[in-house]
């Protein structure tokens, strides 16, 4: 199983793709470690006003653990309306 992560808005532009995959041995095991890895790979992420993560389309805080079967999405600052 690979872990897919979806990107939207400015994070999609930063990554240059709407989705990236982590292969088995590189999968982050928590929301906190996912964020840390993304910021290491894409330093631009640290300049954003906020960076949230959704797991199975619900906001998930840093402590949430990941097993790799979830739908994971990166949520930059929202600006609807």
């Amino acid at each position: 199983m690979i872990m897919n992560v979806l990107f939207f808005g400015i994070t999609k532009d930063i990554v240059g793709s709407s989705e990236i995959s982590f292969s088995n041995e590189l999968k982050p095991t928590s929301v906190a470690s996912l964020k840390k890895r993304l910021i290491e790979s894409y330093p631009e992420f640290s300049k954003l006003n906020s960076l949230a993560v959704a797991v199975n389309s619900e906001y998930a805080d840093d402590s949430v653990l990941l097993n790799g079967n979830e739908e994971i999405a990166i949520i930059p600052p929202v600006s609807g309306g």
Partner: protein
Amino acid sequence: MKKVIEIVDVIDTAKVYAELSDANSGGICVFVGAVREFTNNEEVVALEFETYEAMALKEMGKIADAALARWGLNKVVIRHAVGEKSVEEPVVIVGASSAHRDACFEACRFLIDTLKETVPIWKKEKFKNKTVWVSAHP
């Protein structure tokens, strides 16, 4: 149907009253957000909206449920547009229908304020010479 929750390409403002009308409602309050020509004195060519649709619909549903419960509303509508929108085009419409007007005014304000805080929708402002993701940076 107590609530209408939708992401659409084009918002039809004409049908919202029929959706909110209710035999027990004396008051209906609707807010429409539209594209303004100028932002900080810079001319806007268009706004471009994108969404994480599955999650956006879920979050919009939570907002509607919270408003229905808190104000005892009869009907709620939350509808957001995606894609490119030009000046004067509606981008969001929210509405609440209640027995008396206090409730529908307060609820309508809550709907749009909370939508702007929590619903995963992103807006890019297109100016003549640049594009900017709104609220992304300090």
